Every structure is written in C-alpha cells, then in structure tokens.
C-alpha cells in the first residue's frame, strides 16, 4: 500500500513539474521578444554576412525541393536570392531553412530565421505577431478539384463535402467562414494535402491560386475552379519591431521592381 501511495505522489509531482517547466518557458518567451537581438537584426545579418530565410520545400512554383536535383527552387527562392544580393551583396550569401505554414511564425519569433519568404499572406491577425514588408505578390484563394468534379465554385461546398487545407494557413480559416457547412480537414504540409486529395480523402483542396497552379501543373488531371474568392497579398515577414530590416527589404523589393528583375522572375515561374 505504501508503494502505491508513493506512486501517486510521483504522478502528482510530475504534473506540477510540467506546470513549472511551462511557467519558466513562457517567461523566457516574453523576455526574448524585446531582447537586444531584435533591435539590430539587420546588423546581425551583416555581421554574419549571411541572411537566413524560411522558405517552403513542398510548394511547386514558389518553394520546392526538386527530388531530382535536391535544390530548392521557385519564385520565393529567386526573390529571396535577389534580396540577399541587395542586403549582403551576394545572392549566394543566403541560407534556406524549410518552414511549413504551421512552423514559420514560431521559428521566426524564436530567432531561427531572419525572415519568412514562404507564400505568406499579410493579415491583420498576423500583423499582431510579426512585421510585414510591402506586398510582393498578389494571390487569391481558390479551389483545386479533379477534372469533371461536380464542384464548380465555392457555392458547391455544401454539407457533406470535404475540403482539404494546410494547418496554420489563412485558407483553412477563410474556408470555414466562406463555406461553413463543409467539413475541413487540415494537414501538415502541401505535399500531404495534395496526396490526400489524390487519395480521395476530400472533394477539393483549398489554398492560394498560385500554389494550386503549381499542383495543376504537376498533375494535369486536376484543375482550378470558381476563380478566387479572397485576396491574399503575400508579404515578407520579420520579427516584430525590426523596422530596419523591413526598410532594407522594402528598398530591395523596390529596386527589383524598378530594374525589371521582378518581372523577369515573375514570368519565369508564373505563366497565365
């Protein structure tokens, strides 16, 4: 009996331990938000002589790790390289880290990456968490379905239809508002979500049209339907309070647009 009691004590103490651990962790989180590192992120990048950018690895046309070459490639990647050239003087002084919609904001706030260039929509909610540059790409949310599907637009997402989305994306939140009757299933990344659509786990996949074009390009038996039903302006996100870095990135973006380099990259990836 005594042993049993001590076991219960153990259980209780471990619960408490988790709580204490949590408390410490949360405290750290708050102090690191206003720490010195966020003050001079731009200088840090220059000291390091390298910029670390969070990009997607599974999003065709924007950020995709090509299984044949092992290289990451896409619109976001080229834009990020050009910005590295503007800020640290060389398009190769850049390190890419893979992010997903779910992991990107925590990674940025933890200081693992300097900026996110990963098909990220500027929203009011997110502005409370991070700072954004000017818009660098105009996307809109749409639907991807198997050719011949009964779903022609968002109005067809009735009760019983299943819509697939990706965890942490704005499209997952939007679709619940625009088609409240449909069931929404969320996945870790776009590769998994698209595979789920192919495995008939859902009737449609929803996210930004730009990403969906990449999927339809990969497998032509799928098509976009119904046009766009939201506006998704993409911005580059940096940790809150990093005005110097935002300014530097905005300058870089402006130079790209003025020099025609932006259009060149745009036309290379986005064909409409």
């Amino acid at each position, binding site marked *: 009996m005594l042993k049993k009691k001590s076991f219960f004590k*153990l259980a209780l103490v471990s619960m408490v331990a988790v709580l204490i651990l949590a408390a410490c962790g949360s405290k750290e989180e708050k102090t690191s938000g206003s720490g010195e590192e966020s003050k001079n992120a731009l200088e840090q990048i220059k000291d390091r002589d390298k910029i670390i950018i969070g990009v997607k690895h599974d999003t065709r046309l924007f950020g995709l790790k090509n299984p044949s070459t092992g290289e990451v490639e896409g619109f976001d990647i080229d834009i990020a390289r050009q910005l590295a050239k503007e800020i640290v003087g060389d398009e190769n002084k850049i390190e890419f880290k893979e992010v997903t919609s779910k992991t990107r904001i925590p990674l940025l706030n933890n200081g693992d990456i300097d900026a996110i260039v990963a098909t990220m929509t500027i929203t009011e909610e997110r502005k409370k968490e991070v700072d954004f540059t000017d818009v660098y790409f105009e996307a809109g949310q749409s639907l991807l379905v198997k050719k011949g599907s009964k779903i022609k637009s968002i109005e067809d997402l009735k009760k019983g239809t299943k819509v697939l989305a990706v965890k942490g994306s704005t499209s997952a939140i939007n679709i619940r508002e625009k088609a409240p009757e449909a069931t929404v299933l969320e996945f870790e990344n776009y590769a998994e979500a698209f595979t789920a659509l192919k495995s008939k786990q859902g009737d449609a996949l929803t996210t930004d049209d730009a990403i969906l074009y990449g999927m339809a390009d990969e497998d032509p038996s799928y098509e976009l339907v119904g046009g766009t039903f939201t506006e998704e302006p993409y911005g580059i996100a940096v940790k809150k309070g990093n005005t110097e870095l935002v300014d530097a990135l905005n300058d870089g973006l402006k130079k790209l647009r003025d020099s025609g380099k932006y259009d060149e990259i745009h036309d290379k990836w986005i064909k409409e």
Partner: protein
Amino acid sequence: MDFAGALSPDHLTFLLEGFWVTVKVAFISIILSFLIGGIVGILRYASIPVVSQVLAVLVETIRNLPLLLIIFFTYFALPEIGIKLDIMYAAIAALTLFESAMLSEIIRSGLKSIEKGQIEAARSSGLTYVQTLNHIILPQALKRMVPPIVSQFISLLKDTSLAVIIALPDLMHNAQIVYAQKDAYIIPIIFTVALMYFIVNYCLSLIARRLEIKQA
C-alpha cells in the same frame, strides 16, 4: 500503380538521401541517449536523496508523453531557453530526450537484476561502492542490457519518421515529396519505404537475438 516510375534512379537516390538522414539522426541519438540514460539510470539506482526523486519524476513524465508531442515541444521550446538548433539537431535533441528516459529505465532494471549478495560480498572484501559498481555490477549488467538496447535502437530508427512534423528531411519526408507527384506512386513508394526500414531493422534484430543466445 507505377513501380517503375516511382522507383526511377533519381527518386531512389532522393529516398536514400533521406534514409541516410534517418540513420544519422538515429545513430547520434542512440549514442547520446546511452550516455545520458546511463548516467540517469545509475543515479536513480544509487538512490541519492532528492536527485533520484527529481530524476524519477522527469523520467516518468517523459515516458508517459507521446513522442510526437516531445518532438514538437523540443523544437519550439529549445529556442525559447536560448538554444538554437538546426532541424536535424533539434530532432536529435528531441529523440535523445525521449530515448534517454527509456534507456535509463532499461539500465536501472539491468543494474537491479544483479543479486544483492554480490554487492555485499564485494563490499565486505574491501571494495568501495564505486569500485563495486565499476568492476562487479556494471560489466554484468551491461551484458544483460545489450539486447534491450539494440531493440531500443530499432524503435529509434522507426521513431525518427515522426520528425516529419518538424520537416526533418528524413526518409518519410522525402517519400512524401516523391509520392505527391503522382497517385500511381503512393503505394509503390510506401512499400519501398517500409522495405528499407524493414531490412535495416530486421538485421539489427537478428544481431540482438544472436547476442541474447550467446549470453544464455
């Protein structure tokens, strides 16, 4: 199903690249876990007041949580206490944390399995506690622990696949990228991945069994 297309040389190389990450992560993690788990196991076995209790609580908490949660947690919690790691090292840290807890239990019960009489005999013949531990208990206990440690390594190799949730470019992650290309690839790739894990793990389990027989 398109086995030929799914298993083109490019794809196979890409899968093997992922498998190499899996093996590397598992191997580094098992070595670290053995060291940490060993220390924790010995400290708990030695029943030092306070230290043993604190470790017991930590070990029990970790052992009772899903590994998926621990991986996710480590990945995001470490930076908050000022440790910034690459995805690969974060995965290693998470797996090490979990496996250390598992191994410490194996090591502790291995130590406990040595008869008390031997300890008393050693002590009464003039050896100190540490000497007894070093020369009498550990060598015997280690022998008994080898098979369970090998099976723990097998678990580790399998568990590495869970690090896909933090985008570790391991076998599972690369497999997802390959089979996202075409539906005809899904089943062939899943079978190939299963086979890769099976071959390596089965060989390991044969080694573990041979060691077990040798001892018996």
